[in-house]
């Protein structure tokens, strides 16, 4: 499944947003949305990216797409450095990539029919016009399970799942190699979710696509991904080629895994509830960013930033004590480990 050829290599990617305030709106600080992130995406695989809301996963996806300018770092696409790409080259480069946004209603122009919305990539890149454009759009729509009847309708005439499929068709229009799925199912209900996810998997097989699948839902990520990267406060804390439910080695990943609801009542209450609030990315904690909420935190965690270490089998973990800790998320509830805050 996982071929060793890298499609995208992200090296030390940083994206800081300026925070302005005060009378003259001077720069008060930076939101470190993505802070020194390094990872590879292999051809034909799906890399899942999970984390809490606000941890920088969406920003990460958009920065790779060149939708927002990065602050620092390198993005290497098929062995070529595309970090500083601009103008016509950027347009040419974007033909290789597609993106599906979280909210399908908002990502479709309400005044443009589906034919023109899906056909826009083909039109602006000079691939097709007129009848040919229409036929190509129709083919795309048929691929995602829509028909000719849908061609000349406006977005508001569709259901949520259909809109999401239209967005997928648009992302596929330029025959890209790589698609960023930015929480594609978070705004649809569960029955539609499964359909959409399976459609994505089928399309991946058919077109040999590479996905970056961003979500906060661990079960969905597990279903979709070959490898999973866990993000916390702008940093990747763990990257595992296997099943994150089985192999989590970082305390944060373990806590995420344990928080997923399971239909087994005997396991109820085993979750390690994370204490406290996600710290502000404006002023992240020193050392390991997770240490204020980590129940295994030691002196060293507050001072030294942990690097991603290879724990064997391609599993990378950014924890000083990875492998030494008894994370215990698979066992029965340990009463002392649950940080239930009294009222």
């Amino acid at each position, binding site marked *: 499944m996982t071929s060793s050829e890298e499609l995208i290599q992200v090296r030390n990617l940083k994206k800081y947003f300026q925070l302005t305030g005060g009378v003259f709106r001077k720069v008060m600080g930076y939101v470190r949305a993505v802070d020194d992130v390094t990872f590879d995406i292999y051809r034909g695989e799906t890399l899942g990216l999970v984390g809490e*809301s*606000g941890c920088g996963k969406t920003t990460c996806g958009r920065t790779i797409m060149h939708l927002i300018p990065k602050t620092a770092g390198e993005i290497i696409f098929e062995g070529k450095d595309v970090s500083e790409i601009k103008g016509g080259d950027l347009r040419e480069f974007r033909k290789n990539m597609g993106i599906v946004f979280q909210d399908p209603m908002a990502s479709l122009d309400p005044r443009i029919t589906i034919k023109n919305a899906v056909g826009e990539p083909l039109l602006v890149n000079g691939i097709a016009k007129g009848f040919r454009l229409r036929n190509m759009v129709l083919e795309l729509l048929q691929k995602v399970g829509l028909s000719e009847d849908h061609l000349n309708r406006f977005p508001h005439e569709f259901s949520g799942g259909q809109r999401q499929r239209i967005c997928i068709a648009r992302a596929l229009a330029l025959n890209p190699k790589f698609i960023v799925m930015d929480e594609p199912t978070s705004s649809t209900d569960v029955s539609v979710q499964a359909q959409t996810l399976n459609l994505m998997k089928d399309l991946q097989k058919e077109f040999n696509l590479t996905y970056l699948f961003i979500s906060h839902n661990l079960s969905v990520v597990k279903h979709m991904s070959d490898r999973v990267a866990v993000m916390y406060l702008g940093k990747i804390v763990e990257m595992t080629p296997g099943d994150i439910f089985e192999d989590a080695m970082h305390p944060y990943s373990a806590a995420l895994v344990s928080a997923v*609801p399971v239909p087994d009542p005997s396991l109820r209450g085993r979750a390690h509830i994370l204490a406290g609030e996600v710290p502000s990315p404006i002023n992240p904690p020193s050392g390991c960013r997770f240490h204020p909420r980590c129940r295994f935190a030691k002196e060293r965690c507050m001072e030294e930033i942990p690097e991603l270490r290879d724990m064997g089998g391609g599993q990378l973990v950014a924890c000083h004590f990875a492998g030494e800790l008894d994370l215990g998320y698979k066992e029965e509830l340990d009463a002392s480990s649950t940080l239930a805050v009294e009222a």
Partner: protein
Amino acid sequence: MALISPRTIDLKTGHAQLALQKHIAGCARAIRRVIWHMRLRDYVIRRLLLAIPVVIGVLAITFVLAYVMGDPVGIYTQERTSPEAVEAIRRAHGLDRPLYEQFFFYLRDLASGDWGYSVSARLPVTQVIATRLPATIELSLFAIVFAIALGIPLGILSATKKDRWPDHVTRVVALAGVSMPIFWFALMLKYVFFFQFYMAGLPALPEGGRYTFTVLPYTPITGFLLIDSIITLNPVLFMDGLVHLILPGFALGYLTLAIITRMMRSSMLEVLKEDYITLARSKGLRERVVIYRHALRNAMIPTVTVIGLAFGGLMSGAVLTETIFSWPGLGRWSTRAILNSDIPSINAFTLLVAFIFVGANLVVDLVYGALDPRIRYG
């Protein structure tokens, strides 16, 4: 701030979560309160600073308009004046200097209180303003108080009785208010309540003026007739002044009344659709309490801005109303000045009105900022 959201990841279980949420919400509230005060101060300062370029721009526009209006030398010369003499006058008044220097002189003169001489009133402009401003303010205040006192209840009535006859009547009244030429409305009022009442032998309202000057003696102290009559303990003059205010005040206030009513209605309808109103109702509160305790406060916020903007309409309307009711205020003076090409007066009037308007909007914005925390984050 979005960053301090009280939500964490998939915390799906029981009381511990609730407690945690409470704790977090408490912390977040404390932080927000600090930010609120910080932001309010910053907002006030920023809003004041933003007013500076506006004031400079207003001065520049009035200067340019005055400059284009005509050569000020004309006032001092006659047909016989020799070209040399004209040149001498130009030099004496600095009119041969470059434009930016003249602008500087203009600012200096304004700052030192030398606003020019009003030919039409045969008085220095500042003196004219001092005598006429109180009359205009008195009229405008009467109009705006009338508009608010009637407009807000009408708006609430219209919103709460939506699509029933009180709503329809109110909407027609409001729509007529924004569509009616104010000067025509004033004339029609005068025609009915002065002329027709007078012809029918009914107690007619006065035709114009601030008081019956043929009968009553009045020496201005503050310039505000109603206040002066109270100070001098003169109930006859007070009543006379009040009666004289009714028609012009009503004519002037009707447009503002219409604007306030419409705004109040739409914002009230907007607020009544909100979830917290449904919640308040579902708690079993009486409708009166829901509307006056919960909805009104939030519905007032947009209405407050409209009142600030309506000030401009009042100033425009005052020009027309005062002309029709012979009200000895700024508006009447300005029309006379324009028809006599009295440039310093036109200029001073435009400038003064702009300052009043800018000031009113500044106050409204600050009130708005204090009322609605969202606005400060802009």
